[in-house]
């Protein structure tokens, strides 16, 4: 079987960004909320300003430095993972559209192709079985 290599991760910008946003924005918001809740819980437990100044604020400063250093790497990894995984679903669609257009035009010898890790692989395989049966019947 012919192996198709992934050339572009960003195939359908709008759709991919929309799905990435649907996952990434809530995730970042959730992390931000957790960060704030942890900070507020400790602050509310301490309450005495001298305790907060001498203990919590220096600790938060360290956490913020670590976050500032890690955040670009973390964001890059999240966006990269988002691109890769959204590409597994959305990546084959433009090519499948082109191949289906050829079938509509009457070329039943066309077989739909997917990559090994594409989420639509099983679905496309079944369409190929239907196409096989159709071409045998005709």
């Amino acid at each position, binding site marked *: 079987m012919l192996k198709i290599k992934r050339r572009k991760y960003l195939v359908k910008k709008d759709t991919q960004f929309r799905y990435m946003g649907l996952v990434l924005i809530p995730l970042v918001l959730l992390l931000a909320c957790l960060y704030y809740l942890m900070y507020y819980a400790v*602050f*509310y437990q301490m*309450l*005495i*300003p001298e305790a*907060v*100044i*001498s203990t*919590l*604020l220096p600790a938060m400063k360290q956490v913020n430095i670590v976050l500032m250093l890690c955040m670009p790497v973390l964001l890059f990894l999240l966006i990269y993972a988002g691109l890769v995984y959204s590409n597994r679903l959305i990546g084959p669609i433009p090519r499948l559209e082109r191949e289906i257009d050829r079938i509509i035009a009457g070329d039943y010898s066309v077989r739909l192709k997917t990559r090994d890790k594409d989420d639509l692989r099983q679905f496309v395989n079944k369409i190929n079985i239907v196409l096989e049966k159709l071409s045998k019947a005709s």
Partner: protein
Amino acid sequence: MKKNIAKVFLASAFFVCVCIVATPAIIYLRQFTFNEDKALAKWNKMILNGQVNYVLMKQGGNGFVEALSEKACSALYYRIGFKLKEYPVLSWKWKVLQFPDTSAAQSEDEKDDYAARVYVIFPFFSFSSSKFIEYVWSPDLPVGTVKTNPKAKNVKMIVARSGRSYGGEWVSESRNVYDDYIKVFGAKPNRNVGAVAIMSDADQTKTVAEAAFDDIAIERK
């Protein structure tokens, strides 16, 4: 003559009754008399640097909290939410039995020990958006001195009592916290009080401080 005496007596009695009825009773939101055995059960301890010994004491049936700090700094706080405008007055009694010795302190930080502090805490979304007022008994700073914490502008210290000449006697304070808030922060409070606290510390000077607190009350004007 007898009739006149009776009239004067009746008039006086009437006047006294009117005075009693007309005198507005103080409306307390909460009073901490510390007379019960478990009076500190709902007070939380916040240890900053070593533990100050807060003990419930009784003297002639009157309970109070005695704080002994040996090179330590920790506070007792009580969570209570209320609108300052409705209950603007905080009153308490305190006495200082021993001031921390700041004679060897070389910086302002090292001098930052007070035998007795009373806090009013206005927690908000974060530390920097919260406000804090500390009333302290200073041995040398004049009454009314306002100091801003060098590490946080939202923490204001007001000298409520000054001097060493009280000889360990109880001194009563009554502060209009609402007015003090406006005075030190320059604006009306836009957040509720979340807690009141007491503290005695001697950790910076590495000496000993001892104070006592009693009859802390949150009241209407």
